[in-house]
């Protein structure tokens, strides 16, 4: 069951009616039941992995909390007796115990994710290395499907345990309440990667029916559906055709497909987020925003603060900071240069970001490409600033902003070639064709539009796609400039949006791109 399906409409309507009719103290129980029903419909065989992750992190969370409490109790009881050094020593003893619990938790959770997602990739690479050494042995691939949302809920549960370890939140003692935090249906399949601190109170408190909240949530859902079925799925037809057999297409078609893919993936993923956040708002729970107009970013680092925000924040707090604060990394910094730990941290984060998206080298290249750009921006920030001063560039000029935005979009779009292509070989072919075999003649342009429908309706199809895309980005431009025209006429907007969805929506293509991650 995905968000854009008739089954989901029935599911959500039944859940909402029941949610506001039952006694409020049982609302969270209904959400838990609903979340498991939602997951079971989508991925029944993989409930077992969700159970494992929930139970393991629940137990670890409770154990970590007990150790923190025991430490505080000892320190309080013996406050008059202990010297400063002894207090430090006592804290260290408990810290070591907590670290052991956390490591067990990480090994199990990341281990399950690692085996399910990366086993075949790892074995393929071992086989390639053996072949390189002259040993011909093929490890058999194990054919299994990846459990729905495993990359997302693993990060949610692991993040929770690290937060309890760092004493940034209290552990949840009720396993059912904790299970709701992990499985909450709007977030389970594609995020956002929520934090326990932000979600816990909202998930378990009582919620009254609020028509403003329902209206806002419903409107947000409609925006999401529009982005998904009118823009993303329409452009997706073109992208899938061209990227499905890139060798059959010329440079111009490949360029179109690459630009369309940037719009498709944004409307697909942010459309999903709009639906998820809207549905969550309807039940009174405010989730973290995951997008903030990423294609208006003026630099790559800014782009990553606006795109998949919760994933970036997760990597920052749970991977980047621990790596560059580690003693070994600091030692390297002292030995060589202060910037070295930051570069190591960034490389680790971007390599992991690439691998998080999928077990394939083209995802690794995509991650490292962005990592390299972020590192270059970091290392040469002062050089760029000096250049701007010497060239008398007004940083606040609108034209300069537009140039920076376009430059960032082009850099991001190049990375999408590696992200979307089936493998590295096809990706390099596409780059080569776009750079060296671009032939923007009138005839080529006509042919380049054909992949939309493969007949003479392609131009009309293209027109609708472009108008819908323009609609999405005009709204974003207005919002970026803090102009609130559309919010004043919400009912009219709902009618227009519904009409457009029904007229131009591409129904039947219900899966979202990020579901596979």
């Amino acid at each position: 069951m995905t968000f854009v399906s008739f089954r989901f409409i029935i599911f959500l309507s039944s859940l909402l009616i029941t949610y506001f009719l039952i006694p409020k103290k049982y609302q969270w129980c209904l959400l838990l039941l609903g979340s498991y029903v939602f997951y079971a419909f989508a991925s029944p065989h993989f409930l077992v992995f969700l159970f494992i992750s929930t139970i393991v992190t629940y137990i670890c969370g409770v154990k970590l909390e007990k150790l923190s409490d025991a430490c505080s109790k000892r320190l309080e009881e013996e406050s008059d007796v202990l010297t400063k050094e002894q207090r430090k020593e006592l804290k260290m003893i408990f810290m070591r115990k907590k670290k052991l619990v956390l490591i067990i938790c990480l090994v199990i959770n990341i281990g399950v994710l690692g085996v399910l997602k990366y086993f075949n990739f790892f074995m393929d690479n071992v086989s390639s290395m053996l072949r390189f050494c002259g040993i011909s042995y093929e490890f058999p691939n194990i054919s299994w499907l990846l459990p729905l949302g495993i990359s997302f809920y693993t990060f949610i549960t692991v993040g929770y345990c690290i937060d309890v370890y760092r004493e940034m939140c209290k552990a949840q003692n009720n396993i059912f309440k904790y299970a709701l935090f992990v499985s909450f249906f709007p977030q389970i399949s594609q995020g956002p990667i929520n934090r326990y601190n932000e979600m816990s109170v909202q998930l378990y408190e009582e919620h009254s029916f609020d028509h403003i909240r329902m209206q806002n949530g419903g409107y947000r859902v409609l925006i999401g559906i529009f982005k998904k079925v009118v823009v993303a799925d329409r452009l997706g037809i073109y992208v899938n055709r061209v990227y499905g057999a890139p060798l059959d297409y010329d440079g111009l078609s490949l360029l179109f497909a690459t630009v369309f893919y940037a719009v498709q993936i944004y409307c697909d993923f942010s459309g999903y987020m709009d639906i998820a956040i809207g549905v969550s708002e309807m039940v009174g729970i405010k989730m973290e925003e995951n997008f903030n107009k990423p294609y208006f970013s003026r630099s790559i680092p800014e782009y990553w603060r606006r795109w998949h925000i919760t994933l970036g924040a997760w990597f920052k707090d749970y991977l980047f900071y621990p790596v560059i604060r580690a003693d070994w990394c600091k030692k390297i910094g002292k030995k060589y240069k202060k910037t070295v730990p930051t570069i190591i941290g960034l490389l680790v984060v971007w390599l992991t970001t690439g691998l998080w998206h999928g077990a394939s080298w083209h995802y690794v290249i995509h991650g490292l490409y962005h990592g390299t750009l972020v590192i270059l921006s970091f290392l040469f920030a002062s050089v760029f600033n000096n250049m701007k001063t010497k060239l008398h560039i007004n940083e606040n000029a609108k034209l300069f902003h537009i140039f920076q935005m376009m430059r960032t979009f082009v850099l991001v779009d190049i990375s999408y070639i590696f992200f979307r292509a089936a493998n590295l070989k096809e990706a390099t072919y596409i780059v080569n064709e776009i750079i060296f075999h671009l032939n923007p003649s009138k005839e080529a342009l006509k042919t380049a539009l054909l992949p939309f429908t493969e007949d003479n309706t392609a131009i009309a199809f293209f027109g609708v796609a472009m108008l819908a895309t323009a609609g999405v980005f005009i709204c974003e431009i207005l919002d970026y400039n803090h102009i609130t025209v559309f919010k004043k006429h919400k009912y009219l907007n709902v009618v227009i949006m519904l009409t457009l969805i029904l007229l131009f929506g591409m129904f039947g293509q219900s899966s979202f791109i990020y579901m596979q991650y």
Partner: protein
Amino acid sequence: MSRKEIFERINIVFRDVFDNGDICIEEETTAVDIKGWDSLMHITLMDAIEEEFDIKFDMKTIIKLKNVGEIADIIEEEI
């Protein structure tokens, strides 16, 4: 060490890390007020303050810090 002295020393660290001699920090100064104070510079800043005052921030402090006043509070506690 008085709070004023702590602030003066923190201010020197800020100017050094952000390479900006015009920075004048206050209790309520946050990342929004200083150009370039992002997650990369945040960790560099924390390292520099640790070195300056010979203290060590835990991860909870690094992530949750809201403003310069809170940095000064922790330094006052630690030294």
